[in-house]
């Protein structure tokens, strides 16, 4: 048996690994969303259900378009981070890895789609 100190045996064996970076990323995005979410709810909500002309004209303006784009990017980044924690708690083994990858694909796919839509509406 190799001679190892107790500390050497323990370092790197914890379950969290890069958990503090993950935790901090969630906190930073949550503070950003604290500002973005109310702005998005009331800009998006004000044209939801309006005519095609009203909606396209509204999202051709910079403020609503930027609020929507930022909320989509930061919100889905926050989602994929949080959903990963949910999956890690309830799904294990290979299924866990596959589920995390699929959820991240969904989040980034939705993010790209949303940005494409906003860009097309705004330009």
């Amino acid at each position, binding site marked *: 048996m190799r001679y190892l100190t107790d500390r050497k045996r323990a370092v790197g064996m914890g379950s969290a690994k890069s958990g503090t970076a993950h935790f901090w990323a969630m906190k930073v995005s949550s503070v950003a969303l*604290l500002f973005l979410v109310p702005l998005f709810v*009331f800009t998006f909500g004000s044209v939801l*259900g309006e005519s095609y002309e009203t*909606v396209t004209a509204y*999202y051709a303006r910079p403020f609503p378009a930027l609020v929507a784009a930022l909320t989509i990017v930061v919100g889905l980044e926050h989602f994929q981070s949080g959903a990963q924690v949910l999956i890690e708690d309830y799904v294990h083994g290979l299924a866990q890895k596959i589920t995390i990858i699929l959820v991240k694909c969904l*989040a980034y796919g939705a993010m790209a789609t*949303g940005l*494409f839509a906003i860009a097309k*509406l705004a330009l």
Partner: protein
Amino acid sequence: MADVNRGNRPLSPHLTIYRPQLTSMTSILVRITGNALIVGALLCIWWLLSAATSPAYFALANGVMTSWLGKLIMLGSIWAIWYHTLGGIRHLIWDNAVGLDIPTAYKLGWTVVIGSFVLTALTVIVL
């Protein structure tokens, strides 16, 4: 030392033994609302994509969004987003190691629950 008892260790008591409390219920609701919001988010993005595509496609997506089911999902999403926001603020407060005693945690819990309904009502009135 090799861990010879991997996967067969006793778990600390959790859902199966604890009586539901305001603190545990408000906590699990933060997780449920946060993850469920993906449904409303995908619908909103689809609606924006339809507006960027064509008037005919917009008519379809707008029809779905303004149907009773679409309105129900949007109303639920408004409540969920306010609940998750208030729950998140509570976590940001707790991160500073304040408000963790039981009376304050209960007050914050009721603030989150009642506040989410008040904000939902205000949003519905304004929009």
